[in-house]
């Protein structure tokens, strides 16, 4: 499978395309380098379980270790609450993305703007268009996706991967953040 083709074959954006996260270290470095990262989690994550690992548990660990506030969309909140994790905010995907395009928005804690927005679990085409909105209208925000498919409008994206490869990468990112 081509690594850096849009997962939806026809959804080709234009000249500016996401750089590949070919190794987990890249994502790890991006997160470490960010002053104010934010993690936006869609309902798609609830579908995935790989070798006994529920993706949501992996993301909770990522958020905790990386001290990244989590914004949950749609019904994702219920699953976080069920695990005793209270997200920083509940907000529809288009709402949080819209706020990220506002350079004067001081974030959900009212302190400062975000410089890295990490997306995972939105429907592919919705995440595609939202990342496009941010690519064009949020110049101060780098974006990264943690899905197992290539999202060309992000600044950084995983390649199209098997679920197994993807889970291994996520595990490695979480493990590295613990260093």
């Amino acid at each position, binding site marked *: 499978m081509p690594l850096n083709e849009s997962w939806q074959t026809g959804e080709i954006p234009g000249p500016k395309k996401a750089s590949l996260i070919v190794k987990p270290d890249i994502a790890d470095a991006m997160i470490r380098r960010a002053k104010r990262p934010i993690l936006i989690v869609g309902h798609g994550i609830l579908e995935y379980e790989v070798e006994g690992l529920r993706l949501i548990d992996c993301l909770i660990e990522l958020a905790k270790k990386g001290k990244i506030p989590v914004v949950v969309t749609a019904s994702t909140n219920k699953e976080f609450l069920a695990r005793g994790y209270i997200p920083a905010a*509940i907000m529809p995907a288009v709402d949080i993305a819209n*706020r990220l395009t506002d350079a004067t928005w001081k974030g959900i804690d009212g302190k400062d703007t975000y410089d890295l927005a990490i997306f995972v679990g*939105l429907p592919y085409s*919705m995440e595609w268009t939202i990342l*496009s909105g941010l690519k064009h209208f949020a110049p101060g925000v780098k974006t990264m996706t943690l899905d197992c498919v290539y999202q060309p409008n992000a600044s950084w994206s995983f390649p199209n991967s098997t679920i197994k490869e993807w889970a291994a990468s996520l595990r490695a990112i979480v493990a590295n953040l613990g260093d």
Partner: protein
Amino acid sequence: MSRKGVSFRVKEINSDIAQFRDLSISIGAIHEEKWDEPMGPTPFPTLSTLRSWDHTLLKRYKPFYLPFCDLCCLCTYGKCDLTGTKRGACGISMSAQQSRTVLIAACIGAATHISHSRDLLTHVIEQYGSDFPLNIGGTSVEVEAPITRLVCGVKPETLGDLEPVLDYCENQVTQLLAVTHTGQEGNNLDFESKVFHAGMVDHVGMEVADIAQVSALGFPKADPESAMADLGLGTVDATKPVVLVIGHNVPPSTSIIDYLRDNGLLSEIEVTGICCTAMDIARYSAKAKIIGPISWQLRYIRSGVPDVIVIDEQCVRTDTLQEAAAIRTPLIATSDKNCLGLPDRTNDPIDAIVADFVSGKVAGALVLDMEKVGEIAVRVAQGIAPNRKKQGTLPSKDRIIELAKKCTQCMLCRRACPNDLPIPQAIKPAAGGNLGPLNELYDDCVGCGRCEPACGQKIPVHSLIVGAAEKQTREETFCIRTGRGAIQDVEIRKVGGPIVLGEIPGIVAFVGCANYPKGSREVAEMCMEFAKRRYIVCTSGCSAMSAGMYRDKDGKTAYEKYSGAFEAGGIVNVGSCVSNAHISGAAIKIASIFAKRPLRGNYEEIADYVHNRVGAVGVAWGAMSQKAAAIAAGFWRLGIPVVVGPHGTKYRRMLLGRADKDEDWYVYDARTGEKVYGGPVPEHLFFAAETKEEAMVMIAKLTMRPNDTSKGRANKLANYVDLHKRHIGGLPPDVHRLVRVPADIPLTMKSEILEHLQQHDWKEQPIPDPTLLPRMVHTRRD
């Protein structure tokens, strides 16, 4: 009312002033004034007449652009890369380009409805004459054309009176399309204002179409108890010759019914339909059967059941001719907008056309004479059915297994699927004989067929899915209440107060196409949920069909379970796409009939009323088309929010409010003229939800209006909080922004909400008499 094209000649006039010879005078229109309501400020608005109102809305609901392409490729300078802050060769920015594209889409949509309206009106005038009176609902409907009255300031009484209204619409769409030319408009907000204009004009065009066909073709006239019609693939009696009609413009289909009636054949032939032609033919004869929304085209044709296919216009798959040929079914095209390369047989004798079809000499023909179409379609179906033997192209179980074995698991079908359905994962077990996973995809499949050309092994993937669901398709036996048309004035009088005061928590209209993220069932479930909660639920078009394609635990469909009246807990199918005008029309009539606001040419005041007081929300869960974009735009200009599904982000922009910015939510208090905080309601004007659950919560929130009484706000909040708790989890984080005074708090939720308010440093806010128009201060008429 107006009459077009009056001219007269005078050979010679001698007067004290001058002498005239061969004087010729032409008058564009003569206006016979019968309507005593004074003309409002904005009859027949031009592109810029309502600009100020649009910008007032757009200041609050700012566009959030979601470019679907980084490039502009509309002129020979291009392609131009507009990424970020780059500008194109003509100087256009990305935000302007996106809004320009939205305007192009809205223009396509409006042009399509208006052109449909023109064709329909011309047809019924030819049939019944221009003096044929409009009758939308007898004495129950005195405000026969609320949108036309509002926008144009005219009160049509006959079919002929609708012609100048369409002249206006056609003129405006031409002007609007000109705006999108290279080097015209350059400001995104002005583009957006024109999008609103396109939407408003679109609603006028839709209204003209539907009131013309309701009046002339004898459709149900604002009837809450309009007849039930069969719905679903399983309702067709395939032992009979079967006619399939697809599209939106109903005259070819009514001609089929007329021929059947005239020849005593109604019980001999099955007339079935897909898309809005189906909806409208069922309004003409409830014996016609509705197969389903647009996404049912491939699956039904491939079943082989139709013996002849008659297409008219809009949302007809452009490969219908090829699909029809594959099942040896002839196709008759009936619209000059959709000729499909077919020979024009309009002027040929009927016998010759029928003979050519039945013998298989021709696969398709263009016939533009509606009278002929009915006879040809019926006689061809009768002649061809015995030989065709309903041969379809759907594979048998053994063939599915055989084809599935060819799959290389390359994933290209999944990567072509708009819903990212796990097709390869379902084909794999099918190769081993387990068709269950393939069958499971059937409900979520939008029927686009994109998976098939993507397959390198030439596996007919869509057919595999439908073939695997063969038993399920036979069990698609539902029912739908046929489109009732307008809302009665008396219904408006009954519910106007409870809606504006909030005792009825809102009007939720499920409209638009069937590009659903997870199948039709979600629409049916949402309809039932809001009807159960005593909202007024309206449906139209493909969504109206989807609403009926599901049975609850009691085995009932939405239309069997709930009344068709415009009342709390009603599910009101207004009809086809063009019947959407009755939904916006109902909101306008609440302002006009219940609140007695002047209607005539008085757009801003009515829109201001609707926006601030009428808790209506449109939901286009599977919106796909440019027409859906235009319909939504017509709601936006009235200040009515629209919720779309996740695919809706591909419309390239949202119109989102910022609840966290208090300064955005000030309104004038019409009693005092002071600017006061009205709260973030409705929060958004155009919003894409990620899931059905998120949509339902947002719908409940978007019904709130600054004018809500405490009783009404408490009712709306109770629904919002309850839905949020069920589907999102916990108390909504923004309750403190929505409670204005303690009496707004639902009694059963008092303690938890009070605790929340304390945590958020909540302060009581007065409930204003809200308006966004300074001129409405102290001049309220209600």
